[in-house]
């Protein structure tokens, strides 16, 4: 029995969401009286993996087959299933990302495992009962789900767990190979288009978001400048993406991206329930709206009633002075 954590890497680094998964996995290992191993795939610096020791990982299996530098679900799943078999893992921890979800669902079928996605807390383990809490109803509620199969796969929601940092602890890194065949690479991407430059919305700790209250794309420089000053990603409401003021990948909400940053600043957004569904698990919500009755104020921690075009420049000024 052991715990296996799947590590996602980007640009040679371990993603922050994977540091959270590693911290989660090693805590689960401790409560099960076992150790946590990680499996990392693709292009990553060895020291980035060694330092996973700080999150409680003892050993990292690295498969650096160059064909794996792009995500190919079937191939990744094969590597992870093989690592799980060699480590005799009964619990597998992933990030609740697009990659994590694609891996988790395939792996669950292959291993006849229970799968819980969108998990927000450590499991309750009592006797043979193993229960996790997950977000449901688009963030409007939680459900406690018992994972009834012998093997359990958990996808941890971003920002739901603290990252452990036991300074100086190191993990050993071992090369690992799943002897992949060309057939395992069916569905490999022909081309990858990276979103340019700025901070990624899905990875961001701080988000500045604009709605129809911004009046038009010509005012978006205010959102961008505030975001840039704070080191935040930019986002928008659905109508803003639908009209074409902003690209669709910035649209957050029920039908767009779900975010759970530490800080979400909503400027000129009414706070319709479908928008809230994508942002209501943010730790701190700030709302700027000229209408004191805007429903978003009910979900906010801090609010300013005022015209975005006047308030945001003041915020930029104050942020620059920090």
């Amino acid at each position: 029995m052991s715990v296996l954590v799947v590590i996602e890497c980007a640009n040679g680094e371990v993603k922050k969401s994977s540091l959270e998964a590693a911290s989660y996995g090693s805590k689960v290992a401790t409560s099960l009286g076992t150790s946590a191993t990680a499996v990392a795939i693709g292009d990553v610096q060895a020291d980035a993996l060694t330092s996973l020791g700080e999150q409680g990982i003892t050993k990292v299996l690295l498969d650096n087959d160059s064909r794996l530098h792009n995500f190919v679900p079937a191939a990744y799943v094969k590597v992870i299933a093989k690592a799980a078999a060699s480590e005799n893992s009964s619990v597998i921890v992933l990030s609740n990302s697009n990659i994590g979800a694609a891996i988790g669902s395939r792996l669950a079928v292959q291993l006849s495992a229970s799968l819980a996605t969108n998990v927000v807390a450590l499991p309750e383990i009592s006797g043979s009962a193993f229960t996790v809490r997950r977000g449901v109803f688009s963030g409007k509620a939680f459900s406690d789900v018992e994972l009834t199969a012998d093997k359990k796969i958990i996808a941890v929601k971003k920002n739901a767990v603290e990252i452990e940092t036991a300074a100086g602890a190191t993990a050993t890194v071992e090369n690992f190979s799943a002897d992949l065949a060309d057939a395992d690479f069916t569905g490999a991407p022909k081309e990858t288009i990276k979103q340019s430059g700025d901070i990624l919305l899905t990875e961001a700790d701080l988000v500045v978001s604009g709605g129809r209250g911004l009046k038009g794309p010509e005012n978006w420089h205010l959102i961008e400048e505030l975001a840039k000053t704070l080191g935040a990603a930019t986002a928008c409401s659905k109508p803003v993406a639908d009209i074409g003021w902003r690209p669709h990948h910035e649209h957050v909400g029920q039908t767009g991206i779900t975010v759970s940053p530490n800080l979400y600043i909503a400027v000129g957004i009414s706070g319709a329930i479908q928008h809230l569904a994508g942002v209501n698990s943010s730790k701190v919500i700030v709302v700027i709206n000229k209408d004191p009755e805007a429903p978003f104020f009910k979900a906010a921690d801090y609010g300013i009633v005022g015209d975005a075009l006047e308030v945001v420049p003041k915020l930029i000024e104050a942020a620059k002075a920090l």
Partner: protein
Amino acid sequence: MKILVCISNVPDTTTKITFSPDGKAFNTGGVQFVINPYDEYALTRAIELKEAQGGTVTVLNVGEADTEPNIRKALAIGADDAIRVNVKPTDAFLVAQQIAHVAKEGAYDLILMGRESIDYNGFQVHGMVGELLGIPTIAPAIKLDVNGSTATLEREIEGGKEIIEVSLPLVASAQQPMTEPRIPNMRGIMTARTKPLQVLEPVGQDAKTSVQKYELPPAKSGVKMIDAENAGELIKLLRNEAKVL
């Protein structure tokens, strides 16, 4: 081309979510159920492909009889026929098993669904179906075109997108901006009544998870208002009080 579109029946997006006092059940009283919004992208794209290239669109719902109004709505939007697998969808694996069985029996070329349902937010059924059928799953797909036996898709990844070319059959889960969902017109509503809706019994009820309890998040402690004149004060509060900057 034979297309299977899986739709789930979910509470309307504006529903205020409440549970029974023991937290065991979601209160459905007075709740309006709709086709899962993400599934509408899959359904509309399937109908567009059929209109352009010929073929059939079958809608599939795993659920009890109360989902039939939304199945009829999918038929009104333009699907040709429908299948309902008569079982309460309590677990993603249970649902995936039913879908995979229907997909295999019907030899569908394309199996489409939404990226996740807005009630259980599992984001798992598509991958499970692909694995059960041994075919690729592209999730979440933001674009889908088919040319002969090859599909070209755009898949959203964290921080960008990928372009993927893959042979049919395949499973794809849809999300915006794949297409603009359609609403049924009068003619569609009339013809939907006469389209076939087949009810099948489940092939197994092998669930791997069990919901113990639901809970609402704690209420926010209230909003702290800052005067617009002193807006800069907010930045200080975010640093010193909320400690998020």
